């Protein structure tokens, strides 16, 4: 009788384990592939963000003439009105657009005169290697609080910088000739109040010639 009870108990336990297995065996390769699939794909995200959110938002950038005039008249007021910054960071960003005449071309930048009848370099479009967070933090479109792991948020900076180097700068270099007018939109990073803003150094997001 006792043996029968044991057999029934073992059969029930086996049936339960068969229906609801307490663990699964997964090959290491499959587990690694699953983990990779779950990981944040920075390059893909940056590409989609660039096309679907950043480019359609360029008209929200402050007009360059308005910004430069505000900076010239009262830099702290211009910072308060037009800049963005992250957390307690001292450095801040401007998101601007406008057009200007090419006044000089060097390896690392293309300088534009923005004000009417000006021949001074007022904006320098950066055309060298691009580093830092200006594109990520300058537009206000991306929020650090949406990223549980800040490494993903930081990787986005590098991915956006690479898009500029790959897609924007080569085209700009091809377009720029002294005396020509270039329309642009981009972001500028200002370290602190002592930063020289003449010219304002801008990482280009989009450039067009008429």
């Amino acid at each position, binding site marked *: 009788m006792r043996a029968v009870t044991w057999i029934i108990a073992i059969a029930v336990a086996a049936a339960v384990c068969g229906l609801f297995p307490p663990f699964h065996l997964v090959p290491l390769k499959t587990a690694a592939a699953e983990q990779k699939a779950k990981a944040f794909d920075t390059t893909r995200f940056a590409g989609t963000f660039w096309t679907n959110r950043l480019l359609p938002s360029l008209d929200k950038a402050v007009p360059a003439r308005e910004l430069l005039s505000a900076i010239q008249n009262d830099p702290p007021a211009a910072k308060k009105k037009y800049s963005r910054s*992250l*957390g*307690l*960071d*001292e*450095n801040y960003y401007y998101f601007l657009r406008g057009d200007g005449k090419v006044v000089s071309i060097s390896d690392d930048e293309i300088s534009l005169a923005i004000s009417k009848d000006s021949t001074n370099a007022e904006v320098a479009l950066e055309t060298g*290697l691009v*580093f*830092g*967070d200006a594109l990520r933090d300058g537009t206000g479109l991306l929020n*650090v*609080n*949406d*990223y*549980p*792991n*800040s*490494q993903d948020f*930081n*990787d986005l*900076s*590098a991915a956006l*910088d690479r898009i500029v180097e790959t897609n924007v700068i080569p085209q700009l270099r091809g377009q720029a000739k002294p005396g020509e007018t270039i329309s642009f939109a981009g972001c500028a990073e200002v370290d602190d109040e002592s930063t020289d803003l003449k010219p304002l150094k801008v990482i280009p997001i989009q450039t067009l010639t008429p």
Partner: protein
Amino acid sequence: MKTHWLKLAGAVLIATVALLFTRTVNAQSAPKQKIAVVISTLNNPWFVVLAQTAKDRADELGYDATIFDSQNDTAKEAANFDDLIAAGYQAILFNPTDANGSVANVLKAKAAGIPVFCIDREINSTNAATSQMLSDSYSGSVKIGEYFIKTVGQQGEYAELLGIVGDNNTWNRSKGFHSVVDRFPGLKMVAQQSADFDRAKGLDVMTSILQAHPDIKAVFCGNDAMAMGAYQALVATGKDRQVKVFGFDGADDVVKLIAQGKIEATGMQFPKVMARKSAEFADAYLKGKRDFPQKIPVPVELVTQANVAKYSDYGKK
């Protein structure tokens, strides 16, 4: 009539004395609210400053603050959380040991109704801690990377000492640095090893790297304790003039060595600012505020021989 007035005055007198006595007894017996300061390790002066500043600010604000040392051990950290939850602490100022491994501890405190404010290091969750005050390590390391190119040049071999591999700051610093340096193909990283943010391990790891790669021109260290250990190894092997050392933290001993021209640069992280602000956040929470930003990046400034005079005592002069 006179007796009536006397009785009334007597009653008022007794009531006043009773009221005063009750208030005095309440003031004496009302215990202060308790705040726990849980720190990844106290075996590093930078974290001692972080812990002590947080405690001092919490004490100033009228709380009874106690420091708990997790000794860079997630199990010890979990035990600290169990203890402080059982002891009825009202808030936790928390410097985690592991971005993933510490999430469970924060959730445990949250379930017990205790707000947690992360300081300097983050946890990989945006719905566990009440707020996270984090060093902007990535941006700081981009600045160090740019300065590295200026001072070391675009050619040559270098090494990197990483911090604790489970900590996001380790990778944010490394990735920020490499986002710049890797763009220069003439610069070759010949060794990248973890020394766990520890000075003694920094000395050991750097010593073995120097044996295998005697011609390196520079070393980037993920914190200043490792930079001090690396510098010690360089002095011991007579290579302190050959190899440029770059740190991260803004620790006082490194800032002094930068001023003496012995270390090239570090990133000043402002631990006192983060610690004070976190204690003030906890105070605001305990007084009823609830809308805190989840993540607050705190700037990291590049300290070099050119601007070192502006910095001391874990911050700006």
